Structure formats: structure tokens, C-alpha cells
């Protein structure tokens, strides 16, 4: 019913930015209901309830092993929870399969710590991979021989600051440059929401700030939503407006960034029972 109205739309109208205040009244973009997840006998997420609204910039923080990456994989539909339901853009991801799942996934862009690019392809093809959800197959095949929509890819690379690398081979780029290629891919995909799994954990502090600033700019310009897992408190406070603390698979705290106290943060990493 009303939940469904977002799903399947290929081009979102620019949502209002800085919408934290009034967006609470809107429908959530993501909703987790009593979600648990196990790997074998190991309980990674324990009965989570979480709602994420359009326009928010949410940091998910916690010690390693707290379940941050698993949470993101549940949100982008590459993992199905052991129990509970994950709703994304008004659809229950656990009920979808094949083409219908892919249609929702096209509105969710993901950025990874290890970039997850295809090393042996030229940068342009990795960036164009963001088009694969839209392109017909003949065009995708043709593009590997004669690159298609070069202008779009070039613009995206220009935006992330490495326009000169358009035709370079991806494995010849530095870590920071590869992460920029991954961001350019998401730019070309043009999703409603960007998930970022430890996007800066492989980068030095300087590069980390550049990449985080870039991500936030892109999200704000395009009126998108950002969900990012981080392990540095400083980055979370500086670039996000809401912080969710995960501890041993449960939500330890959840609130606007400026209301989270240093004690709460410290607690997160202390005394794993």
C-alpha cells in the first residue's frame, strides 16, 4: 500500500536536504523488525529494531565483531536474516527474489572497505558497472569493446577528483584512488541511499577525512541518505547527524550525534561480556 510507493522507481526526485527534523514524519527508508542473524551457531545480531529515514546521515559504530558489516549486508539484501524482517524502500527484502530484489537493490549503493573493484578492468568499466542495473545486455557487452556513456563516467571521476584516471587499469591505482573509483561507481548508479562499510579503514588519516567529506558532500548535493559503519568516534561525530552504537549484536545507544556522550562511546568498547 503506501509502503510500496517508493519501490521500483528508477529516478527519485531530489529529496529535501537537511531533512532530519521533519523527515521523522515521513516513511522510513529502512526498517528492521526483531532481526536476528546467526552464522552457524554464532549469534551476530540479536533482535534488532531500527528505522532509518530519508536524508539522514547515520553512523554505525562499535567494536569489531559487533555486527556492523552484517547489518549493512542485511540492508542491501545480500544477506537474509535468520529471524525477523528487513524492509527497504517499502519492500520486505526477505520476500523478494530475482528481478524484483534487483530492482530494489538498484536504489541502494554500497561502498566497501576493500573497494571490491574488478582489478583487471580499466577504471571506466568499473565506473560503468554502476550502469549495469539499467543497461540492456547488448549495451553492456558493447561497452567493454567501445566504452559507452563516457561523459557520465568522466563527470563522476571529475567529481571524485581523479578525472585523469579514466582509462587507467584499476590495479595500478593507489588505495585512496581505488576508493574514489568505488565512489564514482556509486555516483553513476545514482541510488537513493548509500551504504558504506568502513569506507576509510584502509586509508591514512588525511585520505580518510577527504573521502568522508566527499561522501557527505555527495549525499547532501543529491539529497541522498547515508549509512556508514565507522570505528573512529571522531569521524562519526564530525560527518554524521545520528549515531547508532552496536555492542555484541544489540543496539547500545541510538540518537543525534551531539547527544551521545563520550562515556556512552567508551562503554561501547569496554568489557565485552
Amino acid at each position: 500500500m503506501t509502503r510500496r510507493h517508493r519501490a521500483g522507481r528508477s529516478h527519485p526526485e531530489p529529496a529535501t536536504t537537511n531533512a532530519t527534523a521533519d523527515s521523522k514524519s515521513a516513511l522510513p527508508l529502512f526498517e528492521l523488525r526483531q532481526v536476528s542473524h546467526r552464522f552457524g551457531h554464532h549469534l551476530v545480531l540479536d533482535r534488532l529494531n531500527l528505522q532509518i529515514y530519508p536524508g539522514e546521515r547515520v553512523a554505525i559504530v562499535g567494536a569489531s565483531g559487533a555486527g556492523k558489516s552484517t547489518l549493512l549486508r542485511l540492508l542491501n539484501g545480500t544477506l537474509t536474516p535468520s529471524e525477523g524482517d528487513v524492509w527497504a524502500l517499502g519492500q520486505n527484502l526477505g520476500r523478494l527474489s530475482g528481478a524484483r530484489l534487483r530492482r530494489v537493490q538498484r536504489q541502494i549503493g554500497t561502498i566497501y572497505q576493500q573497494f571490491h573493484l574488478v582489478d583487471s578492468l580499466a577504471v571506466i568499466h568499473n565506473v560503468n558497472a554502476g550502469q549495469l542495473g539499467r543497461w540492456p545486455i547488448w549495451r553492456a557487452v558493447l561497452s567493454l569493446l567501445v566504452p559507452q556513456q563516457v561523459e557520465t563516467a568522466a563527470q563522476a571521476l571529475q567529481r571524485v577528483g581523479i578525472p585523469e584516471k579514466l582509462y587507467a587499469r584499476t590495479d595500478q591505482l593507489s588505495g585512496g584512488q581505488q576508493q574514489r573509483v568505488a565512489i564514482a561507481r556509486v555516483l553513476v548508479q545514482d541510488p537513493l541511499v548509500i551504504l558504506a562499510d568502513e569506507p576509510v579503514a584502509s586509508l591514512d588519516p588525511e585520505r580518510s577525512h577527504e573521502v568522508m567529506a566527499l561522501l557527505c558532500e555527495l549525499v547532501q548535493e543529491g539529497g541522498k541518505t547515508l549509512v556508514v559503519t565507522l570505528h573512529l568516534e571522531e569521524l562519526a561525530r564530525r560527518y554524521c547527524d545520528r549515531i547508532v552504537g552496536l555492542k555484541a549484536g544489540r543496539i547500545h545507544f541510538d540518537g543525534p550525534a551531539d547527544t551521545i556522550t563520550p562515556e556512552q562511546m567508551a562503554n561501547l568498547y569496554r568489557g565485552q561480556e
Partner: protein
Amino acid sequence: MALDGRAEIPRPAFWTPQRRWLLAASGAVLLSLLGTGLFRQALFNPGGIPQLWSFLQASLQPDLSPEFLQLTGRATLTTLAYACCGTLLSVLAGLVGGVLTAEVWWQSVWPRQQTKVHVLINGTRALLVIPRAIHELIWGLFFVNIFGLDPLVAILGIAIPYGAIVAKVFAEIIDETPRQPLQALLNSGVLPLAAFCYTLLPQAFLDLLSYTFYRFECSIRSATVLGIIGAGGLGYEILLSLQSLRYSQLWTLFYALFLLNGLVDAMSALLRHRLGSPTRLDLNLKRRSTQAPISSISPTSTSVVPSIVPATRESVSLWSWLQRWLWRHSLRLAQLGLLVLIPFSFWYVQADFSKLVAPRTVRLLGEVARAALPPRLNGSPDQLVTLSLQTLAMSILAIAIAGLGGMLLSFPAAHNFFLPGGILSGPREPQMRRVAAWLGFGLTRNVLLICRAIPAPIWALVALFVLFPGILPGAIALGIHNLGILGRLMAEVTENLDRRPLLALKAQGSPGVLIWLYGVLPLTLTRFLAYSLYRWEVCMRETVIVGLVGAGGLGRLLTEQLSSFDYAGVLVTLGCLMLLTLGVDGISRRARQALR
């Protein structure tokens, strides 16, 4: 997104070196096809179709009489024993040869004499080219002339060329092993041999061992082929049954061959996984530093022994228990197996090793040497050129069939591709799709096994049912046999893919075909092509063995010369083959460099 001031980046030229090589390769295949006379003369012999049909029909009625089963069992053991003895000897020879041809060995012995080291290495490596370029079968035919029909023929036929191949690969492995620990010992005055035993050899041990297992797989196939020239075992029995048109017996032997090959391949794959270097050909490909670490292998994540049936709960748990048990105890079992198998093999084949140094052997070898020198050709040089070109065409067609077919079949044969939980399967596939995926998986795996288990000469004889003799049946036979080998190696590449880029493509909602096109193919294609180019050299050597059954080329000439004791002519033909092999090796190396 503002674009102001952005300089236009020139698009790279369309004709990259890779694309030029592709064009050249297509041209070569086309020329070879023309060389078979494809569009000029009748190639197909429809008269043979009934015979082919009765041959195929017999697959459902193998001869299962107790006497014949006994014979099959004995033949299987003989082939296994040949392979075992041959592998052991070749690994021993290869270990010595490998150390002696390793750059690092001579650098440790004479650290200050660079030029001397270079001369020595190039010299020893050049010496090893000769035994390597001559196929097992030619060695076998030669030894038959010396020793008569003795098991020694099969064992030496495997040990000599394999020893040279193992030496080359071992030298590469040793040279690629980190040298700091060795340097530390050498700098403190330890003798080179002792230093090797304490550093490089233990460091490289797992790689050496897993290559040895791979060699054993190849030995089984070579032992079968050697049987065909009369050394006994499965190959011999197969040829007898085929020639006397007893197809039901033939199929009993085939099934034994599938079983033997399947078991040995599966054991070897399990052990190689356990040792952590699943694709041995990677050794030759210069590990790239950017390559992601192979995902940790455990029996739960990647089932090395794939279960064919999506079974009920109880049998699944039993199966997974068995898998875990095998996984945990595989190395112990392998040790035990080797301790039993090696003495048993030597006892079973009853080879007369005293013949090696018997006066008669020495005398015969002397006679061969006198007869062979100086090399002389009975016949026109034109014929030699024609036959060389035919051989080249045959090898090109064979590798084209093997490479393309292997690539196509390797994807359904990889256990992480279409199967549930694989790269291209969704989270909730309907039951029908899952069953189809399992069926396809089992079917392609078995097709690959059948292709590689049946020796190329036997495939050639089958092809001759419906094709007129010429290079086409030879190329098809070689192509089918090598397809089985390449397909399996390529499936292993897919199984060891870094999955993360593929999951990233999946997470953004790309359809399966495009995940394959933008993720799987770019990550695998260069390696597939490199494997095929390596295999081209092998195909070149193997043209000889299909020549044996009348498929043409230099092989046929060579077998004629050998059986008429024309050793002077043999040397000339071998020289031609050697040149061709070197040429193929050179081209393949340059192509691989361009692909990297």
C-alpha cells in the same frame, strides 16, 4: 556536477596488443581449418555412423562377467602401478635437476661469478629441453626397441620426460621462494646444500608436494597411453578390445578408467586444497601482488568433495561429517597410502631393473647411436615441411577446441557458480532451478572427466569411425582430451575467485549475465587464455601420439621410422618436432606477456 576546465582525455587506441593477438589467433585457426581441407574434400564418412552407434550403445551393456572384471582389475592395478613408479622416479630426478637448474643454487655456490652462473644455468636448462620435448610415447617406442615389452618401458617412458618437466617447475618454485633465510645461513658460513635443506626446501615444500600430486594425475593418463604401445595395463586392453570390435568389453575398461581417473583427481584436488595451493598452474603465472588472498578454505565454506545429490537432512549431515573427517585426516591418509602404494607398485609391475645396465642394453644403445649418426632423411625435405605444417595446424585446432570448450564447460562445473549459494544464484531460487543447477554441475563434471580419462589416441580411433583419416580427426581427438584437462583447471580458477567484487556487483542489483560479464570474465579470462597457451605446447607434443593411429603429421612419420629402426631419420624428425615445440613455446610466451 560542473565540468568546467576538464581536459578531454584521449580514448586509447582500439587495437590494443591483446586485440591484435586475438586477431592473429583467429587467423591461425582459420588457416589451420583450411589446411584440413574442410571446404575442398569430403571429410565425413557417413558409412561409419552405424558403427559409432553400436559403439555408443555398448556403453549401456558393459561386459560384467567375472573373468573380464578380474582382467579389468588387474589392468587397472598395472596402470596405477606404472603411474606410481613413474611419478616417484620423476620426482626424485626432478628434485635433483630442479636444484641444479635453479638460479639461486648456483648463486649460492659461486656468489661472485655472475657469468659462470649464467652459462651453467642456461646450459643445464637447454639440456633438459630435449627429454621434455619428446613425448612419453616416443620414449616408450624407443625403449621397446631396446628392452622389448618390459614394464621398464612404461616406467622409464614416464620417468624421463616427467623428470625433465618436474625439474623445470621445481626450479621455478625454488627460485620464487623468498631468499632472506637462505642468505642468513650462507652468510654465517653454512655449506649451500645444508643451507638449502634448512631453508628453501622446507619453505617450498608444500608447493613442491602439491605439484607432485598434480604430476601423479598426469602420470595416470600417460601410463594409460603407454599401455597402447604394448606395455600392458588399461590402455593395452582398450586397444585390443577396440581392434577386435568388442565394444561391451571396451566400455567395462572405460568405466574402470573413469573411476581410476576420477578417484585420483579427487584425492589430488583434496590434498592440494589441504596444502593451500589449489591451482598449481598459478606457480607459472608469477603471483601478482594485488591479488587478494584466497579465501580461507574450510570444509563448510567450499566443499572440495562436491556432493552430487541435494539429499535429505540425515544424509547431508552424514556427508558433511564424512567431508570433515576426510579433510582432517587427508594428510595422514595420504602418507599411509603412499607407504603402502609405492612398495606395492614396484612389487606388482615386476620391472627388471637389472636390464638397465645389462650388456645387451649397452650394446643396443651403442648400435642405435651408430645408426642414428649422422642424421639423414630418407625422403624429400618437402614432405618434411608439409608434415610439419600439418602438425602445427593440428596443434592449433586442438588447442582452439580445448580452450573454447574448456571455458564454456568450466563455469557450470565450478561448485561456486550456478549451485545454491554460488555467484550466480539468488537467495531463494525455485526448486526447479536448483535441481537443474545440480544436474548441470554433475553432468559437466562427468563430461570433463570422460574427456580427459580416455587417451587421445582412443578418441582418435573413435573419431575415425565417422571421419576420414587426416589431421581433423587428430585435432578433434587432442582437442577433446585436452578440453577435459583444461576445463577442470579453469573450473578451479573460478572456484578460487575473489568473491567480493562479484558480491558488490550483485548488491547493486546487476543481473547474472552482467555479473559474469563485468566481474567473473575479466577476473578469469586472462588466466584461462594463459592456461590455454601453456596447453598449446602440450598439444604440440601430443600430436605425435595421435599420429600413431594414422591421424597424420610428423607423428605418423616418426612411428614409421621407429618401427623400421631408421634412427637417422628419427633424429631428423625429432629435430623438426623440437623446432616446432620451441617455436610454439616462444609464441605462447610472448602472447602471455601481452595478456598480462
